[in-house]
């Protein structure tokens, strides 16, 4: 959350998207309310439409920095946020 507020919330070049792997939107909502997530979510019923499902790994959490053309630029929270610094 701190990294988001410092590095992404004020950067128009970068959008933060949470791809929720919770099976129901109720579970995702409960968690989002508890943590007061400020970012946009892709909920379970929109996984296929989003085009982001193909990048998912078999483990969580997983961070990925991707450009507008779908090219992966960095993976893992450290690498992603380090690269966001330079954007």
């Amino acid at each position, binding site marked *: 959350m701190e990294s988001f507020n410092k590095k*992404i919330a004020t950067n*128009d*070049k*970068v*959008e*933060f*998207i*949470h*791809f*929720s*792997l*919770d099976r129901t*939107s109720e*579970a*995702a*909502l*409960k*968690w*989002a*309310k508890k943590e*007061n*997530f*400020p*970012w*946009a*979510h*892709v*909920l379970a019923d*929109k996984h296929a*439409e*989003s*085009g*982001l499902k193909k*990048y*998912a*790994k078999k483990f*969580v*959490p*997983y*961070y*990925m*920095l*991707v*450009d*507008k*053309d*779908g090219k992966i*630029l960095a993976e893992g929270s450290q690498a*992603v946020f380090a690269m*966001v610094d330079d*954007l």
Partner: protein
Amino acid sequence: MKRFFSVRYLVLVIAGLAIAYHFHITRKRFVDGNAQLKTELSDLKGEWIELRLKEGATAYAKQELIKVNKEMDRLSDEAAQIRQSVSVEQLAIESLEKRKKALFFEYREQVRRGAKGMRFDEMRTPQGKHYENIEIIKVGPDGVSFWHGAAGSASGSGIGLDELPSEWVKRFMFTKEELEWARSWTSADGTKTAYGKFKSYDEDTGIVTIDDGASKLLFDIDKLSVANRKWLEKQALKGKAEAVAIFEELDKQVIGSKIKKGVLSKLEGDHFFDFTMSNAPDYYVVYYSASW
């Protein structure tokens, strides 16, 4: 006798020659071995000298390394001192900036209080409204109220932040942030007023969302003043034009084209609401996770 002597003599001569040859060969081997040992010894000496030289160079390098390490320690201490000094300076600057800001607000408050009763022959808003014989009633965060018109028939009026002439913006010290942020929201019957930044307008539900700095306020557009509704219509048109341009940009993207509308959700209060993208970013950080 003579024959015996000659055979014996011959044997002795051969034996003597064999012994002499043996001594000769042995001596030659010894001399050769000796020469080889001398050469090896000479080589060993050379190697020894070389090793000593290398040892000397290593010792010198060690000394240099110790010196360099000491210098690095010294520079590191200096850097720590500089960092501390910069930190102190930064705190001092931050403190001064806070003080400067506080003084600015204090002074601005005095200027605005002192504006009461101030007179102007005329004033024209950027929208073209013209007022004459003006006497200021109040300068507030949402705009300026005043009397205008000839004495005896003067009427009260007010202008919002978007109607302030540049001369008044400067005179009454309205900052850019203030002009961008605050706006008054008045009920249709004029009895209630709130201040805040316009966040969004949902055409389907007619709900206007305002951020008053502490929380989000929701208004039904039909219950807002005519001036507010007109402003919102303008904003909506402007917003539509901007949205079209952004969607065109997003359509060119592999990522943006799929998520721009109807895919993303955002938490608002206790519920998720559809989130439509309002800008076209070049990069996306995607966070795959779950509550479990």
